């Protein structure tokens, strides 16, 4: 292993130094000469017809360069959707146009109506106050079931209804599932809400458009998880700019969690306006603006039924979900409740028959798309809740019910069209029971009782599909993109290496871990390897970072490119050492003729590649630079077992997480420190979903949770120290590193563990509560304990107004 850390080392992160000294380069830190500033004027009603916009006063305000409306974008396309779903009846989904600026109708609070560009941010904002917009407010629809009723307000007049699609999976199993449930010895049914969330990376979105008149080329600096995807979508579908005339740069990005995957209207606006105005145009989102313009997450309403035979084997599973799309289709929105959700409904279990129905619905809310986990948390939550409920109804141990139904042989083809390559679910379960001290719970329970507190313990197991994805497969499933990844490994003459990857790091530490891999393969120090990402001008076309795919797909591309480098370097070394390439061994950065002491250092060979005096020029080209594109053969399937322990104050309903243990199987691990950090962060988001976070709208479509005063972001005091273990490892069989991906697991496995723990606490105290929806606020828990009427007797407090419920 390289002395400064190879594969498996908890190498400290090299990117930390700039972040810790204030020398990072985030998009808002970039200022271009002569840049102007845009302020978007957004709808303050959920649904309305724009009668008129009078820009004359605003146009005359100091510093104002131009007021843009939809008229300025008549030649532009709409913001495209990257995935098409086909309904049960064979029809394709309804796909309304998503304009850059509203075309006559606004469809959610925050929908951009006009954009004012001025010489300063303050001037643009001042002019916005003077822009006269007359809007006729229309009835809005927020609730998904209401939206599907006859006579409901229509989000898009151009569509047949508010139903985007009605998806069945696997449709051929439908009748068999119905029969199995009808004939089962026991059926457990649960209705639940997966609460709407807002991703809230700490860096708000920013876009800066620039136009080079001499070269007739555009540059967009943007807070993106996937700059090449933005270049392709915006260039080809929105602004008609060929890719060789469009550079997209995503520099340091302050977190994403999914919300920075999508192509947003503000990016297209700034790119376009920079050409119109012949000067750079910058937009920096305020946090309030982010709440109503970043894509939201989750928002599913589900009924799930689990059938069991007399021996407690799972025999069938049926779920019906309403999934909120919001007012327009965001980039990957249709994939989330379908292929990222339905395919995971088998979970870790041998359930032979599964049927998933999803109705996707338009409402007058911000578009909903992938948020950390994306479909998989929704699948895991309902499954692990219904399994727990079944155990309770049958009076058996929830641990044993899971064990009895675990898949134990791999590869395993599920009834929902995926094949798990490896896993060992008993191992992760054993591990989490050990590190959570499950056996010692009773003693802790007694101590809590002595303090007048209720105490509960909850278990959840999860499976997820990561490393998205085989392009030919996702193409069949409706993806309008390939999902490969790329890397160029450039070896310099003196042996240092620059790796240009299509993956994007926005907190994941690729600069460190990717260098560990390449250094380990060659046997040089990791400090000899630099990772470059985030700029379409100097990286090969890549699909970016989401779905826990970077190491599994991007890392594999890098391995493939490095293998090409090593193969070529071996030939060069063979020539120089006057031996056969087959006899050349590479170890610790030295090429040696097997069985001899004839050896060359890495630097000797790389120098020869660029100073090819003694070189087989008739056989191989000079230089040492290779590119690889890697398209995975399958998804990867990380899995794990999580245990949450809570204390509930029966006087207030407040839930306190007393302990949380996670045992994950991510296959091989490159940097355990970073992997554990990813899990810890995911746990905080999952526990946040379970106990604190809710995106709330009122009945008129006003976004109530539109600031950190109102949206309950988890704070440090909301958590205990976590126990995180990734020592259970069944390597992935189909990628070269044997890795599975770790970015989303924490957010996927934790919500059901928390809810199971709270329900357990209530049951142990004699409160036979079947379920409490997330977030389990003190009000909801207190109300459940005290029979319905909470402290707020008039019904729902703000945090309880889940949109879909």
């Amino acid at each position: 292993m390289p002395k400064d850390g190879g594969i498996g080392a908890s190498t400290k992160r090299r990117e930390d130094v700039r972040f810790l000294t204030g020398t990072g380069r985030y998009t808002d830190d970039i200022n271009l000469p002569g840049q102007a500033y845009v302020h978007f004027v957004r709808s303050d009603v959920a649904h309305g017809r724009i009668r008129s916009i009078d820009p004359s006063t605003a146009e005359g305000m100091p510093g104002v360069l131009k007021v843009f409306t939809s008229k300025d974008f008549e030649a532009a396309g709409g913001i495209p959707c990257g995935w098409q779903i086909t309904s049960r009846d064979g029809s394709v989904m309804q796909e309304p146009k998503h304009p850059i600026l509203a075309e006559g109708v606004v469809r959610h609070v925050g929908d951009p109506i006009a954009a004012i560009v001025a010489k300063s941010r303050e001037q643009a904002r001042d002019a916005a106050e003077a822009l006269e917009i007359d809007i006729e407010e229309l009835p809005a629809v927020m609730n998904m079931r209401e939206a599907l009723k006859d006579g409901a307000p229509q989000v898009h007049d151009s569509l047949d209804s508010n139903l985007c699609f009605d998806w069945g999976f696997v449709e051929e199993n439908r009748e068999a599932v119905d029969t199995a449930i009808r004939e089962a010895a026991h059926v457990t049914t649960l209705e639940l809400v997966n609460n709407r969330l807002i991703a809230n990376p700490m860096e708000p979105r920013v876009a800066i458009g620039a136009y080079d008149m001499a070269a007739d080329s555009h540059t967009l600096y943007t807070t993106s998880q996937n700059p090449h995807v933005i270049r392709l979508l915006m260039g080809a579908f929105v602004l008609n700019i060929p890719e060789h005339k469009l550079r997209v740069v995503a520099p340091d990005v302050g977190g994403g969690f999914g919300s920075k995957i999508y192509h947003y209207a503000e990016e297209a606006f700034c790119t376009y306006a920079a050409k119109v105005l012949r000067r750079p145009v910058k937009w920096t989102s305020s946090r309030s603006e982010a709440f109503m313009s970043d894509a939201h997450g989750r928002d599913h309403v589900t009924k799930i039924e689990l059938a069991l035979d007399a021996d407690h084997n799972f025999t069938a599973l049926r779920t019906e979900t309403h999934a909120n799309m919001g007012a327009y289709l965001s980039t990957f929105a249709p994939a989330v409740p379908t292929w990222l959700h339905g395919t995971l409904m088998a979970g870790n279990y041998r359930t032979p028959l599964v049927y998933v129905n999803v109705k996707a619905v338009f409402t007058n809310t911000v578009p909903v798309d992938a948020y950390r986990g994306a479909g998989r948390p929704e699948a895991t939550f309902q499954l692990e809740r219904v399994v727990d409920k079944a155990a309770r109804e049958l009076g058996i141990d929830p641990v044993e019910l899971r064990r009895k139904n675990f898949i134990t042989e791999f590869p395993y083809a599920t009834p929902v069209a995926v094949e798990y390559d490896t896993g060992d679910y008993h191992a992760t379960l054993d591990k989490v029971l050990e590190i959570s001290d499950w056996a010692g719970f009773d003693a802790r329970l007694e101590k809590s009782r002595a303090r007048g507190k209720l105490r509960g313990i909850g278990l959840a197991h999860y499976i997820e599909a990561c490393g998205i994805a085989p392009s030919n497969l996702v193409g069949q499933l409706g993806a309008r993109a390939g999902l490969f990844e790329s890397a160029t490994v450039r070896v310099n003459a003196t042996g240092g290496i620059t790796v240009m990857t299509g993956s994007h790091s926005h907190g994941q530490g690729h600069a460190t871990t990717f260098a560990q891999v390449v250094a380990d393969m060659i046997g040089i120090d990791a400090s000899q390897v630099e990772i470059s990402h985030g700029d379409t001008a100097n990286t090969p076309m890549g699909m970016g970072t989401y779905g826990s795919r970077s190491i599994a797909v991007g890392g594999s591309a890098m391995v493939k490119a490095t293998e090409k480098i090593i193969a070529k370097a071996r030939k060069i070394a063979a020539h120089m050492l006057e031996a056969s390439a087959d006899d050349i061994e590479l170890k610790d950065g030295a090429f040696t003729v097997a069985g001899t002491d004839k050896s060359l250092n890495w630097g000797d060979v790389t120098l020869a590649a660029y100073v090819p005096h003694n070189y087989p020029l008739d056989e191989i080209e000079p230089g040492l630079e290779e590119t690889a594109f890697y398209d995975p053969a399958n998804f990867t399937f990380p899995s794990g077992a999580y245990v949450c322990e809570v204390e509930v104050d029966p006087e207030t309903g407040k839930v306190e997480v007393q302990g949380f243990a996670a045992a994950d199987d991510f296959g091989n691990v490159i940097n355990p420190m970073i992997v554990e950090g990813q899990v810890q962060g995911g746990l905080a988001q999952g526990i946040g979903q379970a106990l604190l976070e809710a995106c709330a709208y009122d009945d008129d479509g006003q976004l109530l949770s539109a600031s950190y005063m109102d949206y309950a972001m988890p704070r440090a005091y909301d958590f205990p120290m976590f126990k995180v273990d990734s020592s259970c490892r069944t390597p992935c069989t189909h990628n070269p590193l044997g890795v599975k991906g770790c970015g989303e697991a924490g957010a996927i496995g934790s919500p059901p563990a928390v809810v199971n723990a709270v329900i357990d606490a209530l049951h142990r105290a004699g409160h036979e509560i079947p379920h409490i929806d997330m977030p389990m606020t003190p009000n909801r828990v207190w109300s459940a304990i005290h029979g319905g009427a909470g402290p707020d007797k008039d019904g729902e407090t703000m945090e309880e107004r889940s949109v879909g419920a």
Partner: protein
Amino acid sequence: MTKVTMNVNGRSRSGEVEGRTLLVQFLRETLSMTGTHVGCDTSQCGACVVHVDGQAVKSCTMLALEADGAEVTTIEGMTNADGSLGVIQQAFQDYHGLQCGFCTPGMVMSAKALLAENPKPSEEEIREYLEGNICRCTGYHNIVKAIMAASGQQVEPVAAE
């Protein structure tokens, strides 16, 4: 426009500001010191924490004019004289107390203020003190560990290899 002068990280810095210019805008836009970040508009997130005359302040809640004549310390002023990471900064790296890095300047500045008033804080005291600093990446786990380590207290090492 009014001229303000303040001592930032040991250097006298001046600039012209409007009455409404916030201290964070002055730092980021007038002085081009972009280490201090803006993560919200309601003074909740703490990404903009700096020290003004020794007190931790959210620089989005203070007008630049109010800091006229003040001693201001920002994340750019936290390294040792030789440019190496200061004790708190080093602990954040050693214990993986940051991921995307956006909240980090505020976290480090808050940690510095905490340790100035409470040199050996308990885990609970650290968690309570960070009420005004939001991190979305780390789950706070390693931030808490880093601050404990920076205060000279024993903490478990990062992940075993």
